[in-house]
């Protein structure tokens, strides 16, 4: 077993690290002091040199993103922290905020300084009641100690922070939908261009970063880019906080250098598949990334290696399915999530997810037809890259990959009118199906009914 690396989670094992005194005792806000001693441009250069890439899913180089924010536009520049963590299986941002919130806040202040923003918004997922309360307290602490507000640490630099709570929509993690929501409009994505860096919040230059990304920044400022590059592979430096869930012995967040083989994270850190069963499928980066199988366990968990294996690193959320899981059911459940979370703006996402949930549900319930499988293949084609934003692409990932890797399971459902994995017969399956379908069937009309009552 390799020695664990602890950068982002360095303070987690100590007591009371949530609040500012302990944070300061353990070297907190040293990164900010160093940043304020440099010019904003120098800070951007340091982060660029570190090779840090965004942890929200897309993996865009963070320093480059910062350098895209134009200066002297005559408009204010905004920093928005995307803490709308909603990707199924993903809970690393949440724990980072619950256990060491000043770490990302310090990173956010450094980022704001680097792009010369004087107003930062933290967009907090609506369901995150407790993390939201922690945020309120730590922001107040930072103001009290002079890390926020006017003339931070005597540098002459000012920054105000506003915490904004979402209203419970997955789509608001998409950056342009997040901005719409933040402005008080419906959380639906906007056309790009203009890109947020140029015309984001209130049509002003806006930098949007993820909590985990920002959590890395103070360490880079303190230890230097070379130190950061000492972890992980050349193109994906640093560590990553992997959220492991599903059929494993010890679900949780595990920090490991980028490029660590999945087997190490799943089998060593998370204790292996629950009950010693056989691993059947896993996602490397949340539900929006294609499933991988036991064959891929030795692939390194970094952007390039995972992509080469046919999936995406995404948020680093590893969800594990074992041999007793029915992949049709797993896929249907995931698609139900996307159908529920589709914002409704564009046709392929709104109608496509509605349709495939019904087809998958029917197959699961033993009422599949042979033509349903080519139909699902077609829908994968008709939805992928056809939507307004990437939500629908995420919805296709579990469907297309499970159809590719577990086609025999689908075919067996259709052929035998029962589940070949769980052995559930048509009656049981139908009953199960009806129960499971109920939310899907009623969810949508219930919105309608609500609106009906309203007007």
């Amino acid at each position, binding site marked *: 077993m390799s020695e664990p690396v602890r950068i982002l989670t360095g303070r987690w094992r100590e007591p009371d690290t949530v609040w500012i005194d302990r944070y300061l005792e353990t070297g907190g806000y040293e990164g900010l002091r160093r940043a304020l001693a440099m010019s904003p441009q120098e800070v951007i250069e340091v982060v660029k040199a570190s090779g840090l890439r965004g942890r929200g899913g897309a993996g865009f180089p963070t320093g480059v993103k910062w350098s895209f924010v134009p200066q002297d536009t005559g408009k204010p520049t905004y920093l928005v922290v995307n803490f709308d963590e909603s990707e199924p299986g993903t809970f690393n941002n949440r724990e980072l905020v619950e256990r060491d919130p000043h770490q990302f806040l310090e990173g956010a202040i450094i980022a704001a300084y680097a792009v010369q923003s004087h107003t930062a918004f933290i967009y907090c997922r609506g369901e995150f009641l407790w993390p939201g309360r922690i945020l309120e307290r730590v922001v107040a602490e930072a103001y009290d100690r002079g890390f926020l507000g006017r003339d931070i640490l005597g540098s002459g630099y000012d920054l105000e922070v506003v915490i904004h709570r979402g209203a419970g929509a997955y789509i608001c993690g998409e950056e342009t939908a997040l901005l719409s929501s933040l402005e008080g409009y*419906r959380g639906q994505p906007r056309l790009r261009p203009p890109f947020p860096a140029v015309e984001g919040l209130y049509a002003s230059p806006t930098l949007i970063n993820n909590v985990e990304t920002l959590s890395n920044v103070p360490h880079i400022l303190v230890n230097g880019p070379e130190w950061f590059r000492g972890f992980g592979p050349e193109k994906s430096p640093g560590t990553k906080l992997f959220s492991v869930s599903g059929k494993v012995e010890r679900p949780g967040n595990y920090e490991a250098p980028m490029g660590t083989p999945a087997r190490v994270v799943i089998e060593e850190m998370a204790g292996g598949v629950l009950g010693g069963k056989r691993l059947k499928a896993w996602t490397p980066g949340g539900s929006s990334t294609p499933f991988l199988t036991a064959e891929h366990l030795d692939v390194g968990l970094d952007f390039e290696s995972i992509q080469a294996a046919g999936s995406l690193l995404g948020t680093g959320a590893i969800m594990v399915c074992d041999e007793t899981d029915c992949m049709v059911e797993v896929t249907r459940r995931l698609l139900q999530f996307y159908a529920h979370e589709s*914002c409704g703006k564009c046709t392929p996402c709104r*109608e496509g997810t*509605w349709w495939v949930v019904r087809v998958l549900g029917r197959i699961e319930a033993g009422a599949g037809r042979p033509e349903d499988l080519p139909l699902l293949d077609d829908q994968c084609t008709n939805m992928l890259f056809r939507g*307004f934003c990437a939500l629908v692409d995420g919805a296709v990932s579990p469907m297309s990959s499970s159809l590719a890797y577990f086609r025999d399971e689908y075919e067996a459902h259709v052929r035998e009118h029962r589940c070949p994995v769980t052995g559930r017969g048509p009656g049981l399956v139908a009953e199960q199906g009806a129960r499971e379908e109920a939310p899907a069937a009623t969810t949508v009309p219930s919105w309608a009914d609500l609106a009906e009552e309203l007007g």
Partner: protein
Amino acid sequence: MSVEPEPVTLTIDGKEVTVPTGTLVIRAAEQLGIEIPRFCDHPFLDPVGACRQCYVEIEGQRKLFTACTTEVAAGMVVHTQNTSELAHEGQVANLEFLLINHPLDCPICDRGGECPLQDQTMAFGPGESRYIEPKRVYRKPIPLSPLVLLDRERCVLCARCTRFCDQISGDRFIEMFARGAGQQVAIAAGEDFRSPFSGNTIQICPVGALTASTYRFVARPFDVHVADGICGHCSAGCNVRVDVRRGEVVRVLARDNAEVNDAWICDKGRFAFRAADGPGRVTTPLIRERGLEPASFDEVLGRVAEWSRGARVAFLTGGRLADEDAFALSKLARVAFGTNDLDHRRAFHGGLAEELEAASALRVTYRDVERAGAILVVGLDAEQEVPILHLRIRKAARRGARVFVVHSRETRLSDVAEHLLCRPGQEGAVLERLIEGGAAGSDEERVARALRTAEGAVVLAGSLLAEHPLATDVALRLSRRLGAGFALVPRRAGDRGALRAGVHPALLPGGRRLAVASERAEVEAVWGELRSSEPGRNGREILEACARREIDVLFLVGVDPLRDVPDAALARRALENVPVKVVQSLELGELEPYADAFLPAAALHEREGHLTTWEGRSQRTRPVRAPAGLSRPDWEIFAGLAEAVGAPLGFGSVEELREEMEALLAPREVSERPTAWVGAGVPQWLDEVTLFTYPLLVDEGRLSEGASELKAALEEPAFVEVHPEDAERLHLADGGWARVRTGAGEATLPVRVSSRVAQGSVFVPFNQPGLEANRLLSGRFTAAATLEAVPGGGEGARGGEGIAGPEAKT
């Protein structure tokens, strides 16, 4: 300085096209005649990319692109469904998605036969669906207002309707609610879709989700006759299509014309189409024997000619005459009757500004408004008076124009404009201060600077300016000072055409002054020598002369002085004292007891003709059906009358008439000169408060007769609007009642306390149910007034009619 965008050349389906930078691929394809299917795209709305129907393949790109959101680039190679299998398959798949939850109720859907979803499915879509699951169902339909019904099952969520309300009308009553497949158009609880532009959402709906209560289950596209017309409700000149089924008008739609109405019309234009089919319509000539009895045209015209021979004759018209009618009348009065006592006006601007408007056309256009850097609106409530101009001003504001309004009441431009509120009649003083640059640090200084520094400013002056005899020319002078365009914006559809034609006591066709020999001679060269070079009486003076029995025969052409003239008492005295009254109209209405002869006129959609917009643009309107009964176009009646008096007008066809018009109505230069004091009377604004009035869009006007759905949606009962400080001083409470007294009469009205109205002013609408405001007026649209609270007043009336009726005190 606006710079023309660089041209870009690209290839679509193998054909090259050159378009300006920034053009969307879907627009570039249209220029090549290539149709790409679409639902959410609309040329007058911002791109949204929601429906995903317009996929095209772009060489070098791995994904399909939506043509409605993709801007052209130099050298771009685009393949539409015509040349790309991938694009075609993408479009078919998208249509399949759109149809899975769309009900198959086309056979009973109003849209059937003219439905973009139906048409594009047939043209570009799959033959059949693979969807076998249950469809999404909703209660159908739900009313958004008495005019607009929403059937959510049919909705494809393209958001054209909600974007129209957001981007064009600014009346954001409807919005998308919920999400995913449950997303739907909805309205806030307890709200009605109370926008005067709501009907446009029905027309741009690409499916049958929004339908009109006036047209539901009424007709099919293949059983209506249609004709291209011009809306006759105001001077906007909206291009419309009129649909007639079995002889009855059943629908009015907007036609696209980017020079005039873009793609929009107001709800009055769309839904008030029954006036000519109402029970009051008279289509037979009548002559008073024992009572009013039917007779032939020849008989009635003969008798009218007899009465008029050697008599003192005067003509009053309303605002509905077509250009041809106005011209024929101008000639009839002067050539056949030798009188200059004719007028079409309700507001008397007089002065150089009016003469300019009479002499020329298109000095300021919709396009000029749209592209203006700054717009000053004076004495005009554009939304209520000329709604499509209101939309154009909003469009300009969206493009960055600064908009300022000088008025006694805040208009619906309030979200895009800055208002300088003043007491009625004092607009001229505000304008004078703007000319001088405004006092240091004042709002006027700031506004004057904004106007002065703007790129291309426009001054739009409304009829309330005529309340001060000099104000209109002051507005003109301001525009000159700013180098800005200037337009007088009349309210009614026939106003500008009548002014151009010289239905005016002092101006001949083309704004030529009767009193100036050289200008008169230009008209005499065509019409022959005119009997009198003395300017005649204006509208008010004609009525006064009638009351004094100085006129023998009064022709009332499309006008009801009892309702239309801002002095009901004078109108009644005039009608009671003038010996002969000849009514030429679509109906008799309240004039029945007075009329000695009635000449039935054809409705606008029953005849050929032109109407002139506020800009001076003369637009052709075509008949959709024959004139009802024996009715005739007004100009034909005038021609017949001229024959009867033995002085033929000289044109037997509309072509001959237009030839003569074109000769006299070519735009002329007008010589500059200082403005003289003109018009009638002195403004009277010095009293407790100044009452002012103008007509609201949806009122008891003749042309809105029968428009019950429109009135249910938008018509407000009469009220009096009072500024909070005046209300406090006068002990008036919002929702309470006030007795409003003027020199002419009094009325008890519900009070609205609102800072929308200027302090010292009270507003009453001109012609709403519960008040004919001209009973409170003495010749102007303003009057000195006193208000007193009526404790519990009208309490009894509130349950029944809603308001206590006005009690005339004369």
